[in-house]
């Protein structure tokens, strides 16, 4: 760049298009659309729209495509906050939430994932890479205190871990002021929280948070119920447990 000097405007001369144009006889049929940019645009749009339409629309229209499971319930307000923290910290960049129906995966993680388990997941968090293990069935696998210590310093619980430390989760407060807005947004999307639940959601949130704090206290961990880590633990412990619940009821 230093050697030369930029030609910002390059002079050109060209003949304008003439108004009257007759195509050569015997030219390739495709030449027609090459003269018509708008038709080219519309044609491309039709060609590219087809595949998506045919693949996506049936999953909305045909119920058997995503069979619902009665024991799958919406997230509690605390879990919802925890889920949003999971999204915010980009956990999906290293962890999947999808147990594939292989012997090796069922043995390692538990029951394989069902489509009906994800109907309240806005957005889905199946992930595409397992730098760490799958988390679809993490709920109930470890005590709350394990998660607390693990998030603070992963290598303390799993030696050799390459997961980052998340100490700020113990410092930052849950954004309780936007709980009602979150609940209302979910209701708009069809998540069946009872009418007016947005007003009482924070009360439920605090109740559940206190339970987790009490659990942690048993293992000599003192933490305020307002911290983000509590919400994240609530979410992690919920994950994949809806179906376990069903199996328990079936056994009884």
């Amino acid at each position, binding site marked *: 760049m230093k050697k030369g000097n930029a030609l*910002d405007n390059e002079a050109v001369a060209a003949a304008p298009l003439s108004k009257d144009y007759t195509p050569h006889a015997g030219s390739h049929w495709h030449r027609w659309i090459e003269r018509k940019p708008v038709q080219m645009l519309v044609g491309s749009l039709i060609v590219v729209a087809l595949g998506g339409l045919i693949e996506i629309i049936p999953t909305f229209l045909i119920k058997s495509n995503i069979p619902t499971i009665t024991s799958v319930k919406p997230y509690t307000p605390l879990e919802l906050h925890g889920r949003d923290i999971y999204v915010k910290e980009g956990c999906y960049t290293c962890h999947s939430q999808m147990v594939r129906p292989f012997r090796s995966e069922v043995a390692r993680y538990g029951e394989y994932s069902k489509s009906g388990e994800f109907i309240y997941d806005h*957005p889905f968090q199946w992930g595409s890479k397992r730098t760490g293990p799958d988390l679809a069935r993490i709920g109930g696998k470890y005590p709350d205190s394990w998660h607390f210590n693990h998030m603070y310093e992963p290598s303390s619980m799993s030696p050799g871990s390459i997961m980052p430390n998340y100490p700020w989760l113990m410092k930052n407060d849950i954004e309780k002021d936007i709980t009602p807005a979150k609940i209302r947004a979910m209701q708009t999307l069809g998540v069946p929280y009872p009418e007016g639940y947005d007003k009482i959601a924070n009360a439920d949130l605090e109740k559940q948070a206190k339970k987790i704090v009490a659990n942690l206290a048993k293992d000599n961990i003192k933490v305020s119920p307002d911290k983000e880590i509590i919400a994240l633990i609530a979410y992690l412990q919920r994950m994949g447990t809806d179906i376990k619940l069903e199996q328990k009821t079936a056994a009884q």
Partner: protein
Amino acid sequence: MNREQQPTAAEAKAIRHTDGMDHFYYDNKIVKWFTYATIFWGAVGMLMGLIAAFQLVFPELNFSTAQTSFGRVRPVHTNAVIFAFVGNGIFMGVYYSLQRLCKARMFSDVLSKFHFWVWQIIIVLAAVTLLAGYTTGKEYAELEWPLDILITLTWVVFGWNMFGTILKRRERHLYVAIWFYIATFVTVAMLHIVNSWEIPFTWMKSYSWYAGVQDALVQWWYGHNAVAFFLTTPYLGLMYYFLPKAANRPVYSYRLSIIHFWSLIFLYIWAGPHHLLYSSLPDWAQSLGTVFSLMLLAPSWGGMINGLLTLRGAWDKVREDAVLKFMVVAITAYGMATFEGPMLSLKNVNAISHFTDWTIAHVHVGALGWNGFLTFAVIYWLIPKIFRTNLHSTKLANWHFWIGTLGIVFYAVPLYWAGFMQSLAWKEFTPEGQLKYQFMETVTQLRPFYLMRGIGGVFYLTGVVMMIVNV
């Protein structure tokens, strides 16, 4: 240095008519700006990738701080490389070639400038908001709703400017590169709007309109076709313009370009579900994804063949010309990646490759090889043209080529190995029927491979620094 009179802004836009000819000016300035932006964001995006790569070897590099942790850095890397590096690369190439192919100045200088600056602002805001933790949690579509709207607006401006130029063209037939630009414009608009459909509940946070399986399907319909219509079709357009120019040969086959254009854009869209094989997505959708992914091999290789055969009779030039060298490796990498893609869409192969570093290696052959090298080729070709001089050092450009190629090899080979090894370890049982390896064992054994990958990345970035010095 003789600096002749440059036209004023008003003169540059004016068209004079004499003897039945129009006299006007091509706008090189906007091309120059996009070139600077491409180089700058390329270096930034690759540096972010390097940081993320070394974080996987040395977790201390996460610094126990939110803004520097892998989960936030990685989306900055992917978004920067795709939308900032390749994005600006597309605009650089389109703004240069479209004017020449249409024999017309860009439709509006104001729109060009608006497009350039707002796109750069979006990139800066994207980096800041992603590191601050504002994300939708959908890969390659992480940006939150205000930025989504800004992107839509800028994309419309780009399309408006492009179509304005096409409509006032002085060349009746649209060259194949322009077909690809048109398809790119319309498809990216469709994908972005549908996938980013979300319901905001604060000024920076929203929930995806779709849930679970549908969200996954829409996301990978988008995600796969972001690869198709952001990383592939516009770059095929660039290939169709810059390769014949650099080689001074006509495109090998006109018929092949017709067939492969229409079949490529038609088939690509269906292939999204191959990202969701063995997931909870309904089986019929998985099968469709696999079948269309396999068919996709034909038009993809159609493009590669049309590119490589354009060089017939010009291979002696490849020996000397760094631009052509970059192009040949780029097209070859495209061919390898598009062969591997259909293979990875086979359910039995995918069962091994999915969730491992194999995927990461695969996309980097495409990104570093196809997109990176083609971008470098275009830059090395454009800069001397716009600045009316020779390249500072041909030798340095050749060095860039070799260290870049070495970088790709050092990047990809360890990751292929790592992915394959880890997947087999996950699946191995003892004779007693117990899983043989703890998950952690399969992580710690990867660290040397991650280190080698990082070194490959250093090589590649070194090449880019050489280019910055050279141009």
